[in-house]
């Protein structure tokens, strides 16, 4: 057992030696980073980048940075997915494919970890940051500095995860690193430690965000907006963040214990020494199942906003939607065992969790019907967010029915660990979570940038995603029933899997076209931003408060804080030809920029890196540094800047003059 070894710990030259494919990956990442640095230096944008973005405490900018990082991670983990599908399409019989089995293990582990923690969570927190303060009629979140710390911890975790590509290797123990495989005895390299620490750092960021947004929603709402007048997106975020606060401490504990096993030689999850590997599986899913709902609830909320806006009707069944969210929040803690029916808990326990799993489908079904009834007799505008929504209703329902099937323990004994399961949860995560976030990005894009995205390209993107999804995952349902297990890098020819794997590979190609269309959409929209400009601030004929201010929304969101009487306040205002009531403008404060979030995240990265490589000095440096940074921040009395009438945007000045 080596606790600490020398100034560099376990780090040595062999950590930098990789096989060819990995070297190509490192080279691509390194070169793009150098290229980005050169471009910024050439355009002399460092100062702008630092003052306008990296140190900003404006939740809209933090949200955009979240989305930027998440999209990069989506592309990276999407490449992993493409490599896996290519491998499985060709690695039959005598052909071993192009990936070694150990590299393949790292790829599927990295794909799952990156997609959940850095792509999906990043898109979610990005949209929450952008959406929540605007929708509740607030200028900011409750704790702006904490928000920046959360974001930068997320980035630190992301960088740590990707460092494993170049320095050492990543975990090959799957996205949840089940012991005893993930214990030191069977995974002696640093891979699992990279997994632990990148999740730990990003997870603490998520936990802090959870606290921040609960307080924001409870304390920062516009005057008159009682809880039952909140937009549905805000309700769904409230539910999701409640789950974050309840579930993430369990993750923190679980992976810390795994690290203690590996680092200090403890016996929590070891196969011998009085450890209990099954306890890990219970603990990780006690976090992991709520995590799925953490991701999906905000997507439900976005769809609720979109379907009402694009159907020109108020949301059907508002109260039942709220209750459905809270039923899901509660029930999501009563189903975790369905992830391991085969572990041998006995038929009574399995029966209970099977039934609870079927029960949780009911509130989700309530929501599906509410959305469909919202569309019924509406004047539906089939813009790209609506296409995503239709794809979601179709594919999510199919995936949900597959989930109810898996909830039956005897069926699960057959399908457990098969590609049927993989197809099921991708139906939930891709067509539920990702489609929701894509729709949300399209929906709020004009509010942030001042111009809409070119809709026709967005429609192509949505259709490519939907059709690609069907091609990529319906074969997996069939393969699963045929007996194909997950995480398989090679199979025998006479099993007859290959044709379906080739179809699935084609599906990934079509999804790739969808991704290409999305990138193209952004470029075309930037070029044609004059034509696409959102002059009214209300491009969709919206219903909620954020559409009442101009696009792009100013740093302070609302020059005068709105007051609310109705659920769809802005819609009601438009019906009665709302006139600005006379209100006196008062100066207010917004937070000043702070670079300390960046500093704390850098130090957290040092702590993580030191813990992975057992470097004592760097570890102490990181911990002490974080303490000093926190103390320094608490000493700072001068964290706010005042916004006076002169600082307002031209539009807001005119509006205020008009009303006074």
């Amino acid at each position: 057992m080596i606790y600490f070894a020398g100034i560099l710990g376990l780090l040595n030259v062999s950590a930098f030696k990789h096989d060819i494919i990995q070297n190509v990956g490192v080279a691509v990442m390194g070169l793009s980073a150098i290229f980005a640095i050169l471009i910024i230096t050439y355009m002399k944008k460092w100062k702008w980048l630092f003052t306008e973005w990296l140190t900003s405490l404006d939740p809209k900018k933090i949200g955009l940075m979240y989305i930027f990082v998440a999209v990069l991670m989506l592309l990276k983990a999407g490449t992993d997915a493409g490599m896996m599908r290519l491998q499985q399409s060709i690695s039959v019989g005598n052909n071993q494919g192009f990936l070694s089995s150990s590299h393949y293990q790292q790829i599927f582990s990295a794909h799952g970890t990156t997609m959940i923690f850095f792509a999906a969570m990043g898109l979610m927190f990005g949209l929450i940051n952008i959406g929540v303060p605007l929708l509740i009629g607030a200028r900011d979140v409750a704790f702006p500095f904490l928000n920046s710390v959360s974001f930068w911890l997320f980035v630190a975790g992301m960088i740590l995860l990707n460092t494993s590509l170049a320095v050492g290797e990543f975990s090959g123990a799957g996205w949840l690193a089940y012991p005893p495989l993930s214990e030191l005895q069977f995974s002696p390299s640093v891979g699992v430690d990279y997994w632990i620490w990148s999740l730990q750092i990003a997870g603490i960021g998520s936990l802090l965000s959870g606290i921040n947004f609960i307080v924001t929603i409870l304390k920062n709402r516009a005057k008159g907006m009682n809880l039952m007048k909140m937009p549905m997106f805000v309700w769904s975020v409230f539910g999701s963040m409640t789950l974050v606060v309840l579930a993430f401490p369990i993750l923190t504990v679980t992976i810390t214990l795994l690290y203690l096993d590996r680092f200090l030689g403890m016996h929590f999850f070891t196969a011998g020494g009085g450890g209990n590997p099954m306890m890990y599986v219970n603990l990780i899913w006690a976090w992991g199942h709520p995590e799925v709902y953490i991701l999906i609830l905000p997507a439900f909320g976005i769809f609720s906003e979109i379907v009402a806006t694009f159907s020109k009707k108020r949301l059907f069944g508002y109260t039942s939607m709220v209750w459905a969210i809270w039923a899901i929040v509660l029930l999501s803690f009563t189903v975790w065992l369905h992830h391991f029916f085969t572990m041998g808990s006995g038929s009574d326990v399995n029966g209970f969790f099977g039934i609870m799993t079927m029960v949780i489908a009911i509130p989700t079904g309530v929501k599906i019907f509410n959305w469909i009834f919202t569309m019924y007799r509406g004047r539906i505008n089939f813009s790209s967010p609506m296409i995503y929504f239709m794809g979601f209703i179709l594919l999510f329902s199919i995936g949900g029915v597959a989930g109810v099937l898996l909830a039956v323990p005897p069926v699960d004994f057959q399908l457990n660990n098969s590609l049927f399961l993989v197809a099921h949860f991708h139906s939930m995560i891709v067509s539920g979570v990702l489609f929701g976030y894509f729709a949300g990005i399209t929906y709020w894009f004009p509010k942030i940038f001042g111009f809409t995205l070119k809709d026709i390209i967005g429609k192509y993107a949505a259709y490519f995603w939907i059709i690609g999804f069907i091609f990529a995952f319906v074969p997996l349902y069939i393969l699963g029933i045929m007996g194909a297990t997950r995480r398989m890098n090679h199979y025998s020819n006479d099993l007859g899997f290959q044709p379906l794997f080739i179809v699935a590979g084609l599906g990934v190609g079509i999804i790739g076209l969808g991704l290409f269309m999305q990138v193209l959409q952004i470029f075309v929209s930037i070029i044609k931003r004059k034509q696409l400009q959102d002059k009214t601030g209300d491009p969709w004929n919206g219903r909620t408060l954020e559409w009442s201010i101009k696009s792009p929304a100013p740093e302070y969101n609302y020059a005068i804080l709105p007051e609310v009487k109705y659920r769809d306040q802005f819609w009601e205002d438009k019906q009665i030809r709302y006139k600005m009531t006379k209100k006196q403008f008062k100066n207010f404060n917004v937070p000043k920029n702070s670079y300390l979030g960046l500093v704390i995240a850098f130090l957290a990265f040092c702590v993580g890196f030191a813990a992975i490589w057992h470097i004592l000095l760097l570890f102490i440096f990181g911990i002490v540094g974080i303490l000093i940074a926190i103390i320094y921040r608490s000493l700072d009395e001068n964290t706010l800047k005042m916004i006076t009438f002169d600082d307002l945007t031209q539009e807001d000045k005119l509006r205020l003059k008009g009303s006074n």
Partner: protein
Amino acid sequence: MAENIDLVETAESTKTYLGFWIYIMTDCILFASLFAVYAVLHNNTNGGHSGQTLFSMPYALAETLILLTSSFTSGLTILAARRNNSKKVMLWMAITFFLGGLFLFLEVKEFNHLIQTGNSWRVSGFLSSYFTLVGTHGLHISIGLIWMAILVFFIFRNGLSKKTIKGLTLFNLFWHFLDVIWIFIFSVVYLMGHVGL
């Protein structure tokens, strides 16, 4: 006696209090998970000693009384702060700090004793979970001690202001919370271990 400090909560400070309460709840779940782990593993002694032979009840009781007293003296700082008596605040803080430090010292001594007598965390699942559960509490106490030192420094420099009183209140929440956790540790780890449950 100087005039009472206005303790009316501003909108900003209610946000901080609510946020801090939610943080404490997350910490509560963290400890709940550790307790659950301990409950699962506490009989897995792997041929080593069990809690019945390892733990000394008078020692644990002494630790408990010291920590409970520190919680009481920490509460007295708030009473002194309400009377705007910064000297008394610092006196009670110093006593709290001393008691907290004494508790931590006793805990480290106990850990050291266990390790010296060949009962380290590497021996069994039971000892791993024991050291982690009690050690996590000890880590929180250490953070509390650092926090106290900083608060005393602030009060010494700036006197009692809205900001320092807010800090004092938050610290008290934290310290009482650690007390509650310790009572559970005392009951679940030491008492039940002593009885052999």
